[in-house]
């Protein structure tokens, strides 16, 4: 902007009869107005997308619930009270009690911390890694063969065994569950990204960038990445949901957080065996998972529109 501006000044001075050009101040004012307007459009575009706003509200609400858990609910999620186990919803226990008499409402709130943490980290990690692998695989042939074959191999390893062995070697820790789930989710993400990237690479604007002498890296990240973001976001929300559920299965194995600590997944697990008598134990964590996934997905769509204005998606 500044170069143009300077040049403009000199020219108009020399050529008095040049047609009227924007003076320095006017230009500045126009640039500001356009930038403000562009931002207003984007925000209006985001807020007008009711779904995205709803998604944002839901995700924020769940995050708040998780953070403010101690304030909202005075029950200790680990306190046993076997006398009144499997009690239905009541004022004392808004979500009822589980097989050990612990308050399900407290466990769901505290459980949100682990579940969201695992869900987000696995989702985002596998999203980024998947995109990196997908992009590199789509750009050069050799990388394509090696990376894709590794992915095929990785996908065959059951994540149970992976989690257990990571646990055996590195000790029981939530990080191992995240590592195991990420390793298992990256291959499918990478394959999706590669599929999209192959299509995008054929587009004329990518060739145009190549003509402009843009480096491969720049093309990949500045031009191809935003265009393959749309399916990636859909897949991330998918990985987020399955991570929450799988985390439970692994932590039930002791691979992740030890049993007494609550997470949506292992509440679901415990509820499963008493589903006929105490359906509420399964209901609430399931509902929270569904709600979070719904919110995250709508938010994802909103963000994608925010980033990629052309997408109708």
């Amino acid at each position, binding site marked *: 902007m500044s170069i143009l501006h300077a040049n403009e000044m000199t020219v108009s001075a020399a050529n008095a009869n040049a047609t009227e050009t924007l003076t320095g101040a006017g230009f500045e004012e126009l640039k500001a107005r356009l930038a403000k307007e562009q931002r207003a459009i984007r925000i209006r575009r985001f807020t007008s997308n009711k779904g995205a706003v709803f998604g944002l509200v839901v995700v924020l609400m769940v995050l708040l619930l998780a953070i403010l858990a101690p304030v909202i609910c005075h029950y200790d999620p680990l306190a046993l009270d076997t006398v009144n186990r499997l009690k239905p919803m009541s004022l004392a226990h808004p979500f009822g009690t589980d097989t050990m008499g612990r308050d399900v409402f407290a466990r769901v709130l505290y459980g949100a911390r682990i579940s969201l943490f695992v869900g987000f980290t696995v989702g985002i990690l596998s999203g980024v890694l998947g995109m990196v692998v997908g992009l590199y695989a789509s750009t050069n042939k050799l990388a394509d063969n090696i990376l894709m074959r590794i992915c095929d191999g990785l996908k065959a390893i059951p994540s149970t065994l992976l989690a257990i062995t990571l646990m055996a070697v590195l000790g029981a820790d939530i990080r191992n569950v995240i590592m195991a789930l990420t390793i298992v989710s990256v291959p499918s993400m990478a394959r999706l990204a590669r599929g999209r990237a192959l299509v995008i690479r054929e587009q004329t604007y990518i060739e145009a960038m190549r003509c402009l002498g843009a480096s491969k890296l720049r093309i990949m990240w500045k031009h191809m990445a935003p265009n393959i973001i749309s399916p990636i976001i859909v897949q991330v929300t998918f990985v987020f949901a399955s991570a929450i559920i799988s985390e439970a*299965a692994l932590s039930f*194995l002791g691979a992740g957080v*030890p049993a007494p600590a609550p997470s949506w997944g292992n509440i679901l697990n415990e509820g499963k065996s008493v589903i006929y008598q*105490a359906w509420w134990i399964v209901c609430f964590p399931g509902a929270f998972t569904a709600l979070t996934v719904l919110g995250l997905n709508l938010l994802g769509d909103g963000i994608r529109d925010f980033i990629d204005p052309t997408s109708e998606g």
Partner: protein
Amino acid sequence: MKKRNRRAAAAVMAVAALLVTACGGGSSNSTTAAGASAAADTSGSETGSSAGTSSAAPAEGTKCQDTLHIAVQQQAPSLDLHKNSSLIARQMMDGTVFEKLVTLNSQAEAVPELAESYELSDDARTLTFKLRHGVKFHDGSEMTADDVVASMNRWIEGFSTASTMLGDARFEKVDDDTVKITADTSLLLLPPMIAGSAQPAAITTAAACKDEDDNGFMKQYIGTGPYKFTEWVQDQYVRLDRFDDYVPYGNKGEEMDGWAGYKSAPTQTLEYDIVPDQATASAGLESGQYDIIWNVSSDDYPRLEANPALSVASAQQGSVALIFNHKQGLGANQSFRQAVNTALNCDEILTAAFGSGYELGSCYMDSGQAFWQTDAGSEYYNQHDVDKAKQLLTDAGYSGDTFRILCSNLGGSDKMAVAMKSELEAVGITVDLNIVDWATLTDYRKDPSLYDMYITTFAEVPVPTLKLYYGTNYPGWSVDDKLQSMFKDMTEATTMDDAKAKWEALQGYSWEYLPIICPGHYLGQYAWKKELTGVNMYSGGPKFWNAGIPLA
């Protein structure tokens, strides 16, 4: 032989009955046998239980539904009863396909089945069996003394408790219909062991004993029972069909006494379908697909009981054992062990795992073994006295290091561990839980440096000598001169009353020394269609020799 072990690695687990492939639409595990555990580690035989035999068998000749669909939760590693102690294998095969020289009556006494009679020498060093004649094997051959000797000796070699007790003593043939065994220790308690231990002494043909596969398991299952083995489709079902020329014993029409008596086998085929998920099994029962289901969870029990079309039953299944590691660490200190014992609330622990499906009782032997009942040492049982526990902790010089509990994720052990953790933390012991899967537990408990206590369950045993944890090299290592000598006196007893007296002394001292803490015993709960009659609920689960659904 030990493959290099991973002691150095941190706590670890895999899954036994649970599935958890997480990639993609993975979801939580499928079964938590909240009810009775069917862990492979159930030893000891079953003795009488209060429930006794249930409704009378269908009258002779009434036409019954030809196939009984029985939904069981787990699949046995093998059906060779000599070589594995899994409860499910016994429930299917013991008394149904294989019969034994002696079996248990309702008083848990060993009564003749394939033997005509048996007698113990005065010095209790020799046991002689007179065999029945004309008993047919499933392959058509007739039972001979050679078959019995081969079977009994294969049983001894495969069953560690028997082989340690009998040393090199083996069965030998006296004549065509008598066999005997002579040992340098009292054989007083051998008959109940033959009748009801976790690896029952099934009688099969000598040829079958030799015909083993590469893993040392019998290839064919040839017994003398009312049903013969037809087919086992891995992970799907085990099918047994009626053996038409079965030679019954006992008198027809009379109700069975425990496991002994006339077996009419009214149903043509018994099909044990393997249904891993308990919720599916009960749904299958209600939808009529299955006639009987196993392992009803105690929370589900009242609902099925209320269903008019079904009838339910429960029987002693086994007892819980919290086994200290006496070799090193916190568990080695007796007053620390007593402090832990004082702090625990057995009701809460058992409710956490079994809901209402349990019975309290200070005696290590459950209520099914009336003869061995004693309340010796009961003053130490189920105290949950926080102050006294704290006092004992200071006596033990406890300085706050973590008390590590190892348990499997099977049969509610992890739930018990969680309950114990909060109770022990209440008295100031820092507790660390280490949940592993079954295969890992059996591996890890062999290393004293990894845990201070582990949780497991034992099936009913007819005699206290079958309590494994009294063995010095059994994981837990209760090496204590007084304890060992009292145990030895009991095994040496030559009369039942003498054995009972020694057992009472041992039980009393056990509550002080605390080789284990036995919080109580849990029940096996079952449900079946109302029309089904003649189910033998004597012990260790239903038996269907006289059971059938009479067709209208």
